[in-house]
């Protein structure tokens, strides 16, 4: 292990996990589903789907209406509902600690915000007039709404933030939480991402960009990162939340520790609003910065949970970026894309995949990339295809996993997690 250990006061660890995803309604079912290679992608049965070019998506496995109280749910956008469910699980998992609320922060991202509320209230306006527009519309549609609701739930007063960087948002929220703790603003931060906008307009809009898979006859096989038959990403919804704090703070309260958030790298391409830089230069820099921030070497990296959205260009640009960032060490890294099962959760993706990285290091098990039948020859990486893989004991302790997230706008975020201790 090449890392120079940080002190407990400077080391940031994960002590609570929560999730609601297309694969499962909580962390245990999500993680079991990912390890088992279960797809959460389904055909859309709504009448409106029939006129769309894309007629499938990855809805959450457990509807939030089955979990939340009716009166509570009706004042919350679906993004807020999913975030609250994941945050309650994570907070409870962390032991619902009695901590100084002025040292407790929140950083919960979304890519799009309360689009379902905006579109739904516009329908009400047009059908019934302005007086019938709900007074809860603005608190429901504002992108910071999910972070605010979680902040209220746990009375967080150190600052409540909502990074917005399209599909990199969830990862940026984790980086923001890490920065809050290292910068001395908080002892503990609840970080994560949420997204819920499965509706004909966003679907039509992403389809208009030619960004979505059109494999309508095989929804579960549609998300196929690095496969030669990949034709776009699969639209999904969900949320994941992690509780992070200094190792010192965690130990003082006797918390269980899942792993370390060791570093973050954030860059921008400066290339195109929606196309990835074909050479992946911004992504390469993000990974290098994350490793340097973690005090780690490429040879410490055992696993990458890739952005891997199943788009023709993006998957290859990322593969090149991984090979460039890690050099010869890239061949020793088990790479996977859990989006093959969850679909692409946009602003929640980086949070769900951070959770998957943490669990992969904790259990020494990497979830598979499903639907990978014919590996694109340009990928040249060790992809964990078809079945979960055990990580070799000789790479632990000190094993590092990276999570990559990239967003429209040219946003790149790489996060480095380390096994703990």
């Amino acid at each position, binding site marked *: 292990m090449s890392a120079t250990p940080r002190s407990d006061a400077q080391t940031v660890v994960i002590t609570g996990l929560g999730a609601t995803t297309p694969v499962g309604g909580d962390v245990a079912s999500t993680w079991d589903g990912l390890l088992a290679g279960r797809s959460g992608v389904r055909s859309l049965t709504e009448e409106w789907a029939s006129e769309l070019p894309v007629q499938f998506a990855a809805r959450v496995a457990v509807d939030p209406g089955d979990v939340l*109280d*009716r*009166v*509570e749910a009706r*004042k919350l956008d679906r993004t807020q509902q999913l975030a609250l469910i994941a945050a309650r699980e994570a907070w409870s998992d962390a032991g619902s600690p009695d901590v100084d609320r002025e040292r407790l922060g929140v950083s919960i991202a979304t890519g799009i915000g309360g689009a379902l509320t905006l579109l739904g209230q516009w329908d009400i306006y047009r059908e019934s007039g302005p*007086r*019938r527009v*709900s*007074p*809860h519309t603005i*608190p429901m549609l504002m992108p910071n709404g999910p972070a605010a609701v979680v902040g209220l739930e746990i009375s967080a007063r150190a600052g409540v933030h909502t990074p917005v960087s399209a599909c990199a948002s969830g990862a940026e929220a984790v980086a923001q939480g890490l920065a809050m703790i290292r910068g001395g603003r908080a002892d503990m931060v609840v970080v994560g991402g949420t997204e819920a906008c499965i509706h004909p307009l966003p679907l039509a809009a992403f389809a208009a960009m030619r960004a979505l898979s059109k494999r309508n006859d095989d929804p579960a096989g549609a998300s196929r990162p690095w496969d030669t038959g990949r034709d776009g990403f699969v639209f999904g919804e969900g949320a994941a939340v992690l509780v992070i704090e200094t190792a010192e703070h965690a130990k003082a309260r006797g918390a269980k520790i899942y792993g370390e958030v060791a570093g973050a790298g954030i860059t921008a391409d400066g290339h195109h609003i929606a196309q990835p830089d074909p050479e992946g230069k911004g992504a390469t820099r993000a990974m290098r910065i994350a490793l340097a921030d973690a005090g780690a070497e490429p040879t410490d990296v055992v696993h990458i949970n890739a952005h891997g959205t199943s788009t023709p260009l993006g998957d290859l640009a990322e593969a090149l970026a991984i090979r460039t960032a890690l050099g010869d060490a890239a061949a020793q890294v088990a790479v996977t894309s859990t989006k093959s099962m969850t679909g692409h959760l946009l602003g929640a993706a980086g949070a769900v995949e951070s959770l998957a990285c943490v669990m992969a290091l904790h259990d020494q098990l990497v979830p598979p990339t499903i639907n990978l039948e014919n590996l694109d020859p340009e990928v040249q990486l060790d992809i964990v295809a078809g079945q979960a893989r055990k990580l070799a004991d000789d790479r632990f302790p000190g094993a590092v996993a990276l999570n990559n997230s990239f967003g429209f706008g040219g946003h790149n975020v790489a996060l480095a997690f380390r096994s703990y201790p």
Partner: protein
Amino acid sequence: MADQKEILSGLAEIVNEVAGVPVDSVQLDKAFTDDLDIDSLSMVEVVVAAEEKFGVKIPDDDVKDLRTVGDAVTYIAQAGA
């Protein structure tokens, strides 16, 4: 034309729908804010739903005077329900 008992019962259904307060708890002497924990945004919902249900107009300037359920029942009855 609804009598006071019918108005109270209709209002109780609205308050239950909006705020989850049990129908039996919505009594004439209860204050919307202090007793039933209805915030200003939810009060807007109650007013708009009451206008629709009872076919009356309740201008915003009058809403601040509707402190208790009894105030609202009286107002709706006088407004011609």
